[in-house]
Each structure stands twice: as C-alpha cells, then as structure tokens.
C-alpha cells in the first residue's frame, strides 16, 4: 500500500568530479564518476537504505540531495517538484524539510555554541517564532531525543558521543522535516550506545512520521532500520529491493558477496563463503562493462563489454546483472 507520489525521486542522477593538472593554467585531465546515473524513489514513511563500500558514491548522493554538492546532470524531485526550479520561499521550505545527521558528532557540532543554540539555529533562521516559543521547542526536542534536563545550557564537549549524536538528531528535527538523511549515524559510536541511538531513530520515525535515507556500510544496521535497500558499487546501483527480500533473496553476485562478508551474529552460523578478491577499483577509471566484473566469480563473456541495465525482476526488486537480464 504505497502512496503513489514518492517523497524524493532521483532520475539518472550524476556527479562527476574533474581531475585537474597544473597550477596556474589547470586543465581537466579526467573525471571521477562518483555517482554515475542512479535512479531511485523514496516513499513517505519508508527508510531507504543505501549500502556500499567506501568510494561507491553513497555520501555524494546524499550531498546532492542536501544541495551541498551541485549535480552534474539528472534530476531530483521532492514531492513531485524538481528541486532545480525551486526559488526563494519554496527553496527555503525544501531545505527545511530535508535535514541531515552526520557520522561524526565530534566534528558536526559547533564547539562554541551551546546545545540550545545548536538546536535553535535552524529555527531562528527559518521560522517566525518568538523567543518563548523557541525555548519551548528546544525543551520539547531535548526531551524527545532523551537528553537530560538542563542540557540546553551546556556545550557539546560536555557530552559523550552518543549524547552528541542525540543533539545532532534534535537539531535535525527542529524544523519538522519530512526527510532526514542519516549518513553513517552510528558508525562512530560504541556498541551499547549505538543500540540506544538506533532505537531512538526508530521511535522518532514512528512518532513524527519521518522518512529516512540511511547511508551505511554496515549491513546489519541497514537491515535493522530499513524498509527498502539499494546496493551501490562504484557510482551505480547494482540491486534494489525491499529489505527482507534483499537479505533473503539477493540476486546480484555483489550483494551476495557483501552479505556473505558481513559477520555472523552467532558463532555456530556458518554461511556460504563468497570471498571476492581484490578491492574496489578507483572510480577514476572504472572497469568496462559491468563495474563489478573483475571481482565477480560468475562473470562471463558479456560482463566485460556491455554494461547491464537495472531491470525489474519482480515487483520492487531490480537488479543490474547479466545473469538476470534474460528473465
């Protein structure tokens, strides 16, 4: 029962970074194709998980959505309207509806601001609230994210990593956003603390009807939070499916390898060992054809020549692999 209009839609989204040589008269000698034509839709209320190894373009994707990075080509539309065409108030509203929580809460919070100022900065900028309303809102948010009373007057360094991540979440929530981008939200945290933050994110999603875009390299975290998962490799989506389907019926050899490489939750679990050789190649000069073919055990003739298209296998399950092109 999905609503028909996606909250966020990306169509052949691309980001190429120029590689330049020379200091004064620098010329472009090549392009790093960080994101090379990806399509996806995020529906309201979902958690869209984007997984992949480092350098696959998942963070660049999030930066383009946040408009921190200008896209090279392609289109992004939010609630049906192209974000390039947004202006003035509409643009401001868009920026307010898309917020982010970053990986490292030690560098994403301004050390010179008190917690109250960190949380209220977006409010002061974007909304016409009077002082007392802002104060009320700060206290409400502090309570929602489970920070102790009286936190508002403290500075970030007085908090532990988990609590700082809660501050970052409170700031992201301050403008009542529709979509929150979670870029590796718990990878800098300890085990017991990351469980607290993951549970908090789950609760907040229910209470506020939020939509998440979760970016992570840890497949277990993604499985815990996501409803829909896309696997990226070198700037391309290799496979996308509803969470449960992806983890139980992965079709792409890369997805299978990723899942098999993830660590077991119990010592007696012995799974099929698919060890992929080598490491992720540089996006400066990606392999021809299917980008995964040099590391793929099931690669055959067309893999090195023709790039497989992302095609639907069943409802909602798409895969880009020559093994599944015919069906």
């Amino acid at each position, binding site marked *: 029962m999905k609503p028909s209009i996606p909250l966020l839609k990306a169509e052949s989204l691309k980001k190429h970074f120029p590689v330049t040589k020379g200091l004064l008269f620098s010329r472009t000698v090549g392009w790093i194709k960080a994101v090379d034509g990806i399509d996806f839709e995020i529906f309201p209320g979902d958690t869209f998980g984007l997984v992949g190894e480092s350098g696959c373009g998942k963070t660049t994707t999030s930066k383009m959505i946040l408009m921190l990075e200008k896209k090279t080509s392609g289109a992004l539309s939010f609630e049906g309207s192209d974000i390039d065409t947004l202006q003035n108030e509409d643009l401001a509203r868009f920026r307010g509806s898309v917020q982010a929580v970053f990986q490292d809460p030690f560098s994403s919070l301004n050390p010179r601001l008190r917690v109250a100022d960190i949380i209220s900065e977006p409010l002061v900028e974007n909304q016409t609230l009077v002082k007392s309303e802002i104060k009320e809102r700060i206290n409400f948010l502090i309570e929602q994210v489970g920070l102790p009373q009286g936190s508002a007057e403290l500075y970030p360094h007085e908090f532990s990593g988990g609590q700082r991540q809660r501050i970052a979440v409170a700031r992201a929530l301050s403008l009542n956003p529709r979509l929150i981008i979670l870029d590796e939200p718990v990878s800098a945290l300890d085990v017991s603390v990351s469980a607290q933050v993951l549970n908090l994110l789950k609760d907040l999603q229910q209470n506020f009807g939020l939509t998440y875009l979760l970016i992570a390299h840890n*497949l277990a975290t993604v*499985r815990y939070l996501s409803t829909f998962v896309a696997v990226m490799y070198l700037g391309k989506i290799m496979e996308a499916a509803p969470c449960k389907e992806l983890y139980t019926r992965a079709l792409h050899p890369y997805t299978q390898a990723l899942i098999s490489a*993830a660590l077991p*939750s119990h010592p007696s*679990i012995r799974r099929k060992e698919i060890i992929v050789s080598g490491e992720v190649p540089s996006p400066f000069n990606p392999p021809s054809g299917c980008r995964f073919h040099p590391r793929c055990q099931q690669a055959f003739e067309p893999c090195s020549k023709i790039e497989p298209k992302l095609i639907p296998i069943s409802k909602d399950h798409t895969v880009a692999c020559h093994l599944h092109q015919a069906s």
Partner: protein
Amino acid sequence: MESVLEVKNLKTYFYTRWGVVKAVDGVSFHLNRGETLGIVGESGCGKTITSLSLLRLVPKPAGRIVGGEILLEGENILRKSDEDMRMIRGKKISMILQDPMSSLNPVLSIGYQIKEAIRIHQRLKGKPLFEKAKQMLEHVKIGSPELRLKAFPHQMSGGMRQRVVGAISIACEPTVLIADEPTTSLDVTVQAQYLKLLKDLQAETHFSIVFITHDLGIVAQMCDRVCVMYAGRIVESAPVIEIFDNPAHPYTHALISSVPAVDKDVDRLFSIEGQPPALHHLPAGCAFKSRCGKFDHRCKDEYPPEVDVGPNHKVNCWQMT
C-alpha cells in the same frame, strides 16, 4: 592444552592530573597454543592497554604496569630488561594495529620495513634476506611481491597495507600475535578477506592470537574463547559458543542483544542506558551496577568474586554467586 601466555592479576595504571586511572585493574587470562582468544569491550574498557601491556609498550611516563605477572612460555616478561624485551617483541610476541597508515613508516619502502624485523631477529643478510621478505609477501597473498617490495605504503590500498603489517608481524614466526582491531579501517569485503587470511596463516604456523575487538561479529567468526572487559576488568570469560548461548553477566547479555544482525530480523534492539563509567573515579562495588537491571545491596559495596558457572566459564557477578 599447553598454555603459551598467562596473565595474572595484571594492573596498569595511569597517573594523571585528575587522579589515578585504573585502565587495567587485575586482569587474568591464559592463552593456549594455536588458540584465538577474543578480548571484547567498548572503548575505554582497557582492552588496548591490556594488549600494550603484553608488549610492555604502555605510554610513559603516565602509564605504568604496577602489578601482576605476564608469563610468556613460563617466563615473566615484566622482569626482563629493556634490551631483552626488544628481542621478544616481533619475535615471540608481535602486534597488528588498527590503522595501517599510521603503523607503517611512510618514508621507508615496504621491503625495508619487512626486512627490518627479519634482519634483527633472524640475522639474515643479502639474498636470503630478500628471499625471505619476498616469501612473506607471498604468504599474505600480495601479487607480484618483487615489485611490491620496492613500493611505499601510500602506493597501496588499505587492505594491502594491512597485509604488509601482517607479513611483518608473522615474519619471525611469533608464538603470540596480538591483533588490535586490525580490520576496523577496512571495507566489508576486504575485512572478510583479511580475517580469512589470518585464519589460514594460523592454521599453517599455529601461532596463538589475542584478538582485541569491539565487534561481536568478529568474535563469533574468529575466536575460540572470549573475555569480556568492562571498566578495566574481565567480567566474564568462556568458550565462544557458551558466551553467545548462555551469557552469565548482565553486561555480556546486553552487549550481545544490542547488536543488529545481518542474518536475521530483529524487531527491537536491547539497549543499556547510560555509558561506561569514567575510569578515574570508579564507584565502589561492581562498575556495571548503575546500568544493570538486576543490582542489589551486594553490588553496591563490594566487587563480585569470580565464580565458575560452567566448564571454562567464569563470571564476576553477585547474581551468580
């Protein structure tokens, strides 16, 4: 089974402005030949200081090993002179650190760094030295080793660098290899390759591994036995299956049930409130009491004694006494 390393009541303290930080406070464990022992805990629990103590590399002057014994094949290495210790490091005990970018010297070639350990401990020279270094790179499955010996760390990827570190640390066939979070900086697929490599090498040469990690998945995959550390002490130790099936300490239980799983659906993670206590003023009694759901008056005043709850399964918790 023959035990190669025995640590008895090890205490490593740091003397700081803010008071004495008891980073390792009475840790005892043993390691059998060919075995992999996992030491798990969250950051600040003292697992890294434990591993540095085993090599006597505790940061000076603040840190000092103030008590206990470390018996390596029966000899107490805490009594060794610095000169003797140099001959032990790299030869009998060696270590793989977390970040290969900072554990390799950026201005020396890979070849030089591998040869260094072999030259010092095995006194090889010239051609045999070169051959041995080449062989070590082949051992850790690095392609075209002859070329790679001339390369510098920055020319290699993270996974390869960590393999080089591995090659250096097993070059002199140590009895004990300490792996301190060796795969945290690696990608998932590369991590899988590296763990498999460590296992293969261990099967070939039968060294013992002390695996320091915060990741219970690594423990499940790699270890035979596990020690769980909390606030400078080992709170539970048991064979790996036993730890996962019957965790006796509330902290162990909480740790295991607070990790999301990749191989099954978890509806809601268990989470322990709060965070580990600061080590410079630890409360009296059990350090976990403020986060524990089951504490009573005994936990408040006195540290719980070690009790046996099964074969090779020991726990420090009043609930089990």
